[in-house]
Every structure is written in C-alpha cells, then in structure tokens.
C-alpha cells in the first residue's frame, strides 16, 4: 500500500502549501500573515529544492560531474518568459470565463511545460556529446556550455539582452511549492526504479555496470536530460516569481551554489539535497543579523562579512565532514528501527 501512503502524504503537503500560500497574501489566513521577506525566502527555498534535487540526480545518483546547471535553468526561464510576455495576455483573456486565477494558472502551466521541453532539449544537445567525457573534463564542458548559453541569451535582443527582461508574475508560493513536491516525488521514484538502480551502478563503477549489460551512455543521457528539464522548471518559476530576468542571475556562481547545496547536504541523498537547499538559502540571510563588535575605536561589522563566513563554513564542512551532513543516507534512515539479524 505504498502508493496510498504517497498520495496521502502528497495531499497533506498540498494542503499545507495552500495554507502557507494563503497566509502570504495581504489578507492573511485567518489573521496569520507571513511578511514579504519571509515569503520570498520560502519561495526561493522551494526553487532551490527543485534545483538541488534535479542536480542530485545527475551528480549524486549517476555520479556524473555537471557544474553547468544554471545554464539549463536559464533556458527554461527565458524560453517560458518569452512565451508569457508575448502570448500570456492573449491566452488569459480567451480563458477569462473560467476566472482570473484559473486562467493565469493555465498560462503558468503551459509556461512550465515550455520551459521543461526547451531545457530538456538543451540537456539532450549538451549531454549527447559531453557525456562521453568523464570527471573533470565533463565538469569543464558543462561549465563551458552553461556560459555559452548565458552569453547567447545575453545577445538575443527580443528577450531583453543586457538590459534585463520584464516578466509577468504568474507564479506564487502555491505553484512553486507544488512543483517542488512533484519534483521530489518524480526523482524519488526514478531513483527507486530499475532505471535508478542502473544510474547508481554507473556511479559506483561505470566499467562494471557496462559489463553487467547496463547501457551506460543511454542512462547517463537520460539522467542528464531529466535533471536539465527540472532545472528548466525551476527557471520558469524563478522568472515568473521574480518578474525580472537578467543573465547575471545565471552566471556560473549560480551553478556552484547548486553544487554546494548537494555537497553540503550529502551527495546521493534526496533529503540531503533538500536540507542543503534550505541551508544554502537561509545561511547567508541569517548571517545578516550578526552583531557589530566594538573593539577600541573601531567597529567590526560582522554582517558585512557574511559571505566570507559562508565561504569559511563551506571550507570547514569539506574538511571536517567531506561526505556532507547526511552522506548517502536519508533522514528517514535515522528513524528506522535497528535490530534483527545483521
């Protein structure tokens, strides 16, 4: 009755997301309101969860070394934004009979589909040639492709070019939250499926996997395409929540940020990626509240050092706990009953 449990959990989560989303509106939910700053943080956590779990499929479970995730996010963001800016209003008005919420929801769903398809195609085009390479070389090529994608977008004037791109605000926490849940469920099921076993076998030993009859190239490309597709979805949500796109948002530092999430959480752990996404989003914000310290006549503003401290924490985590917080374990593993025959 595993699927009953999954559906049950999903319904509870969707209800929870709905309640939180209602609380984010100006009216509040039964008088409970979440202010804009925290709403924004929650949305970015959810977007980062999509990015981290999708990259985790490529890096954590398949063992491939991609450091160009932000490029695929950019493809999703810009392709879908081009669609909503040019056709969004027309579709909305033709669907107006169903109510405003539903009309804009449908526009967003189409946008998500477009972002998913375009970034998956980009993933396929990048993946087929590059996945012949291994390790560092693959890493460099993905980094290179991501930068090329960014520079190409920067030179397309119809999506704003260097001045940035104004996008309609179709997404809210409800949509972002739901898609984060969907992403987690889909990737979890992929990993637990036969295909997922093949992916993990590639991570453990590619040559051995090939000898056992796993079509390694095919599975590597599949995981790369799925991962890129979801990165695109995250891009769509980011574009339509942030309402403004600039290619500066997709520099390779963004790709590094996503890598940091899965490495801090623990590579090859679903809950680890989620935990990492939460930590990497919240930590720099929390460090904003560091106190100033007065020594003699000089004041040390520790809040200005927050990015330095963030980098230090990153290095220390790698030195003291290189496998990340959870390693390849899941949070649920810690609650399982021990005992029985070992």
């Amino acid at each position, binding site marked *: 009755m595993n699927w009953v449990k999954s559906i049950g959990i999903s319904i509870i989560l969707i209800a929870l997301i709905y309640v939180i989303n209602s609380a984010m509106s100006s009216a509040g939910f039964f008088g409970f309101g979440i202010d804009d700053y925290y709403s924004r943080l929650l949305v970015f956590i959810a977007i980062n969860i999509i990015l981290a779990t999708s990259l985790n499929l490529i890096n954590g479970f398949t063992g491939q070394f991609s450091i160009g995730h932000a490029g695929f996010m950019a493809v999703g963001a810009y392709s879908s934004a081009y669609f909503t800016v040019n056709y969004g209003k027309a579709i909305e008005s033709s669907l107006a009979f169903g109510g405003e919420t539903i009309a804009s929801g449908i526009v967003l769903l189409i946008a998500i589909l477009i972002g998913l398809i375009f970034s998956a195609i980009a993933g396929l085009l990048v993946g087929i040639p590059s996945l012949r*390479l291994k390790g560092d070389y693959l890493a460099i*090529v993905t*980094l*290179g*492709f991501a930068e090329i994608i960014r*520079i190409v977008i920067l030179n397309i004037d119809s999506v704003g070019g260097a001045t940035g791109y104004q996008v309609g605000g179709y997404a809210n926490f409800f949509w972002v939250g739901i898609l984060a849940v969907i992403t987690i469920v889909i990737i979890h099921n992929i990993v637990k499926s036969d295909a997922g076993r093949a992916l993990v076998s590639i991570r453990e030993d590619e040559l051995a996997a090939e000898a056992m009859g796993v079509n390694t190239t095919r599975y590597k490309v599949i995981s790369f395409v799925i991962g890129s597709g979801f990165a695109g979805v995250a891009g769509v949500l980011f574009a339509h929540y942030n309402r403004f796109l600039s290619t500066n948002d997709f520099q390779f530092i963004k790709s590094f940020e996503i890598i940091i999430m899965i490495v801090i959480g623990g590579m090859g752990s679903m809950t680890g990626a989620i935990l990492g996404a939460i930590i990497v989003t919240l930590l720099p914000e929390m460090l904003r509240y560091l106190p100033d310290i007065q020594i003699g006549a000089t004041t040390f503003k520790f809040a200005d*050092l927050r*990015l*330095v401290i963030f980098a230090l924490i990153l290095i220390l985590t*790698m030195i003291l706990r290189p496998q990340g917080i959870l390693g390849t374990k899941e949070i649920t593993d810690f609650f399982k009953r021990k005992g029985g025959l070992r």
Partner: protein
Amino acid sequence: MTLDSGQQEKMDTFIQQIINGLTIGSIYALIALGYTMVYGILRLINFAHGDIYMVGAYAGFMLATALGFAVNPSVFGFIVTLLGSMTIAAAIGMAIERFAYRPVRKYSKMTTLITAIGMSLLIEYLFVFIFSGTPRSFPQLLPNENYTLFGNATISTSQILIFVVSLLLMIFLQWIVYQTKIGKAMRAVSYNINSAKLMGINTDFVIAFTFALGSALAAAGGVLTAQYNPKIEPLMGIITGLKAFVAAVLGGIGNIPGAVLGGLLIGAAETLVVGYGSYIGVPSTYRDAVAFAILILVLLIRPAGLLGTNIQEKV
C-alpha cells in the same frame, strides 16, 4: 608586390589585432601555467588560482603606493613591485594549500573541488570587504609610450613589458622544472605521487613549492595586466582565471608548453573575434564565449588537449 593604401590599412589593423591578442594571451599563459602545474600534480582544478592573480594585482598596488613608486615611475620601482607581489602571492598560495587543500587531499574529487570553490569565494569576498567592490586605478610604474612598428601598427611600453617579462618567467620556469633537483621531484610527483613518496621525495614540500611557483606567476600576470589596463577590482580574477584555465585545458592540462600555447591561442582568437567576427556573423559581444566554444570543440575532438597525451582507463 605593392599594396594600395586600403590594403595597407587592413594589414596594419590585422597586425595590431595580433599584437593585442598575444599581449592578453601572454597573461592567460602566465596564469594557465599555475593551473596546469597544480593539476598535473594533484589532479585538482584550483579555482582559487584566478583570485591569486587578483591578489597579485592588489599586492602590487599596495606596494607601489606604500613605497612611493606611484609618484616617480622607475625601472627599479617596477621590479621591486613585481617581485614583492610575487613573493606575497607565493606565501598566500602556500597558505591556501596548507590550510585548505592539504586536509581534503585524501577525499573525493568533488570534495576537493568544492573546497577550491569555497576558497575562491573566500578570497573574493574578503577582498570586497577590505577594499570594497569599487575598481581602483593601478599607478603607471614605467613611463608608457607607443612605438610605431611599421605602417600604423603600434606597440606600447606596457605591451613590450608583458612580452619580455612573461618570456623571462617562462624560461625561468622551464629551467626550474627541467634543470633543477626540485623540478625533477615535481615531475616525479606528477608522474606518480605514491612512487615518488617511496623514493624518499618529500611530496608535501614539492606540492607546496608548486603552489608557490604557480601563485607567483599568476601575481606577475596581475601586476603586468595592471600596467596594460590599470583598472583593478576584487572580482577581476573570475573571468580571466576561467579563460586561463580553458587555455590550460586547450594545451593539454598538466603540460607546461601546452599551457603557454593555449594561452596565446585563446588570447589571439578572442581579439580576432572582436575585430573580425562580424564578417562571419559573430558579433563582438561574443568575446567571452569564444574561449569556451574553442574549449568544447577541442575536448570533443581531442579530449587530452593539443599537446596532452591520452590516458587509457584500466580495469
């Protein structure tokens, strides 16, 4: 064969582009040497290396300002600034290796790479914190003049300086690696670190020395660039570092002449695209994409780089 004035002008522009390209290329080559040496020995992409180049430029800036070379330009002042900033960068490079990379050396590749990224962020933000993000103007340490080569193509003092100093440094490096005992040890460690250890080589020292050498070269690159283009800022190392890294891979990572060749090629290709790209439908705004496009082509056709050797995976 005589050229008419229009052709002559085009020829001059072309030569000028090549000179400018090779100037930038020499800087890329200097930085690429550090990437390639560290990769050759540790199989580590040292992402913080581009930031060392920035640190070198700032160290030079501080020295030149503090010692008063900024006011009266002289050859002596330039040499002191160059050597001083190279020494400082070498010390910082060794410290980074000792405190960040050595503890994670035994872990997986991903861990060491993340440590390198963390180190890069740490240096960048620390410098933003100390010097603020606003660019500073590096003082001119030698009087800058333009010399006419032939036609309208010119070369400036700072460009000559870049060619001469980087050539000297490369010869010096070649001498260290192939003529000295420590160079022999470096080659041994890069060939096989465990066997080198068994032969009694102090591998920790060799690795630290490699970092010092690479960082010093990058710092020289920083000071030289600042003579050519005096605007320095804490994030200047990111894109230059990345291109230098691409140059190292292009030449065949771990291969010293390859890094120089790669650097010069990337520099020349970049300037040529800016100058002539519009004829083949590539606008000059694609400047930063050129390096990556070349990189991808090379890796897909010849993964070991131009001068690299292929390593067969064994079961």
